[in-house]
């Protein structure tokens, strides 16, 4: 079935470096959501993008939705140790169904 592909699978950065994770789909996405899961924790909703070309910011986090609504990215500026975790993109469709990307596991070296 349709999949949301997410890359990279792992990313290790030095504290202060930037980080980006990408999601891609072969078909048009109705929306894209982003979640963060801390080690040992549960996924927590960060944001949802709906409009073509949409860009939203949350402090050091910038979320983008592609013009064709087939890709999305999450960029973190100047990573901190508190950013450690796995970041998931997900698509909500048919009102009640969800499709998650495989996640990008971010580690930050102090």
């Amino acid at each position, binding site marked *: 079935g349709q999949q949301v592909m997410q890359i990279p699978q792992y990313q290790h950065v030095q504290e202060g470096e930037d980080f980006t994770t990408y999601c891609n789909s072969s078909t048009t996405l109705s929306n894209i959501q982003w979640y963060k899961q801390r080690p040992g*924790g549960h996924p927590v*909703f960060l944001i949802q993008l709906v409009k073509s070309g949409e860009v939203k910011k949350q402090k050091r986090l910038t979320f983008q939705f592609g013009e064709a609504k087939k890709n999305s990215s999450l960029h973190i500026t100047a990573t901190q140790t508190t950013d450690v975790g796995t970041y998931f993109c997900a698509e*909500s469709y048919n009102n*009640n*169904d*969800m499709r*998650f990307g495989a*996640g990008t*596991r971010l580690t930050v070296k102090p």
Partner: protein
Amino acid sequence: DTAVSQTPKYLVTQMGNDKSIKCEQNLGHDTMYWYKQDSKKFLKIMFSYNNKELIINETVPNRFSPKSPDKAHLNLHINSLELGDSAVYFCASSQAQAGYNIQYFGAGTRLSVL
């Protein structure tokens, strides 16, 4: 108060046993879900219930059966546990609207089958 709570947090059991995981949400949401997260962190939706009706049933073994006594509860019963069932199981809820379906997850149940 915890919005989505699930119990137990940890579950260690022998192969062949039957076990249940309970989930409750106090957000007033109309849809609840069960997810399985394997050791590679893949999140796979197993079931969802909307107004006490099963609306998604992915290709999970029929040893797994969701039960919803009311819209605030969605329990997961697993028969004849197998080694491959070891994973973290997350309950979630949402207020599904056209284009908006934000998931609120419970803390997870870490199931180990020995």
